[in-house]
């Protein structure tokens, strides 16, 4: 576990009042950084991860030994160019990669906190991460960015701290989690909670975990991240290492085998209780309701420059929901750009090699950064 010791983390001493009413203090927030903070401290970008992400956005994740979740976008010469920008990414509270979450060991019981962990929200996650600005003594971030739940955090961040980021890039997200998305999350949670190893969330990580439930949750969710066309083109009705149907319930089809594999590798790196807590936080996210039904009010005082991005084949966070954010911003004359990127890769597009998407962000950030420096815009 030497890698765990190398994990960077800040201890947040001051009290954070959570939306549920409880208060937390002296809790860890694990983070990673890429690139260098310049002398003026004006080149920092805070990236927010999605449901199953972590702080290891770029390069090789030292824990899983796999590529960071946003390796296509973050790195030298990439969209978030770490030769130029200082990229910070933290594991959200409720997560399972070193930040305070249900897997954190309770110092008194010496067991994981489990479902005694308070229910957290996107707002709580963002407020916890704000401490990173103090830690790095950054007066104002150049940008905040993220896709899916990361995009929700972008919206909440700008709403909470209207003048702490010059640029905000919410990608493939929503200002208000839809009934369909709550439904899919509930399906995942029920899969976990139906696993007899879940034990009301008080399982001990060292022995038996609700792996089967978590794997099913992941399989179901994974389908929602892809498009029908993408699935059809990649798998069709292809059979898995066999020439005929076997008239049984093994994985006859490649798509079945693929989903089973996705489920099995997921349980090695993710905690079932974290999955419950984070999906709950997404379900509770309704920025429109936070402002009494008027989303524009969430951004009333902001000077932040927004760039909203959606994908044609994303049916989980469809263009219409992303456009609602644009409409709310235009209603108050905010500085907003918007494009829907054409791709058949579904909601997952923001994590994948989608050249149009990656190059547009890169150019947008680089031009905006030099405009700010040269023209003081």
């Amino acid at each position, binding site marked *: 576990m030497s890698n765990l010791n190398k994990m960077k983390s800040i201890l947040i001493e001051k009290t954070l009042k959570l939306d549920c009413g409880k208060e937390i203090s002296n809790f860890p927030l694990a983070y990673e950084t890429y690139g260098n903070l310049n002398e003026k401290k004006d080149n920092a970008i805070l990236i927010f991860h999605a449901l199953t992400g972590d702080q290891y956005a770029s390069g090789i994740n030292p824990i899983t030994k796999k590529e960071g979740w946003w390796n296509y976008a973050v790195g030298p010469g990439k969209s978030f160019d770490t030769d130029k920008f200082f990229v910070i990414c933290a594991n959200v509270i409720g997560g399972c990669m070193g930040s305070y979450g249900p897997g954190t060991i309770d110092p008194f019981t010496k067991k994981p906190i489990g479902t005694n962990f308070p229910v957290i929200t996107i707002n709580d996650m963002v407020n916890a991460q704000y401490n990173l600005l103090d830690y790095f003594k950054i007066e104002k971030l150049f940008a905040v960015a993220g896709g899916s739940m990361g995009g929700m955090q972008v919206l909440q961040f700008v709403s909470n701290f209207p003048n702490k980021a010059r640029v905000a890039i919410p990608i493939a997200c929503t200002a208000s989690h839809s009934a369909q998305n709550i439904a899919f999350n509930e399906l995942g949670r029920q899969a976990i909670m139906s696993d007899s190893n879940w034990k009301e969330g008080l399982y001990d990580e060292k022995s038996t975990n609700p792996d089967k439930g978590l794997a099913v949750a992941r399989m179901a969710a994974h389908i929602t991240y892809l498009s029908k066309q993408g699935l059809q083109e990649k798998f069709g009705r292809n059979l898995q290492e066999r020439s005929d149907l076997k008239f049984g319930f093994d994985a006859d089809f490649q798509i079945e085998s693929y989903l089973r594999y996705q489920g099995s590798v997921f349980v090695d790196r993710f905690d079932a209780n974290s999955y419950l807590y984070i999906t709950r936080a997404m379900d509770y996210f309704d920025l429109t309701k936070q402002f009494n039904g008027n989303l524009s009010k969430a951004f009333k005082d902001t000077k932040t*420059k927004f*760039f909203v991005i959606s994908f044609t084949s994303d049916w989980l966070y469809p263009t219409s929901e992303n456009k609602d954010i*644009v*409409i709310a911003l*235009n*209603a108050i*004359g905010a*500085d*907003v*750009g*918007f*494009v*829907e*990127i*054409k791709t058949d890769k579904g909601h997952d597009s923001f994590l994948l090699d989608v050249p*149009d998407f990656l*190059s*547009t962000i890169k*150019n*947008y950030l680089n*031009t*905006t950064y030099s*405009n700010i420096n040269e023209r003081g815009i």
Partner: protein
Amino acid sequence: MKEEFKIISKFIEEKSRVLDVGCGDGILMEYLSKNKVVDIRGLEISKEKVKKCLSKGLAVIEGDAENDLKQFPDLSFDYVILSQTLQAFMSPEKVIENLLRVGKKVIVTIPNFGHWKVRLDLLFKGEMPVTKNLPYQWYNTPNLHMCTIQDFYNFCNNKGINIYKTISLNGEKISNISNSNLKYKNLISELGIFLLEK
């Protein structure tokens, strides 16, 4: 930058708020934000062009004027620009109404179907005109509602829209259009540039 954009930018006062509807590659937007220090937004239907604009850091949203103008509040811009796209809308009348709702002043440019070459094509060849500014065949043209400078004049008068200024562009030649020379300018102008107010 093309002559048309130079004329448009002369209409626009410094430090104003501008919306460029159908902003294309954002050439006019870039020019205005660099030289006139304006706060400028763009609306563009082509994904490729929107990506180009965003790559330049311009605040452009993908959308079309017939559906997406409604999200902008009343009189939220000092100027709204519509360059050579009025003829491509399903309902130009409604688009103009919306432009005048959103902008305090509206700049509209129209390719003039009253130009003598167009008239001659129809008169002598008996064919729908195909010109430098209107390079399409009748069966593939995006231009659903062609009009002449005279037509647009009449339209504004009937609707009670104030025409502040009209400029004729014929090649590189720029001239003013007034009531007295309208018939003539309608014959020789390739482009009409109108500054309107409700």
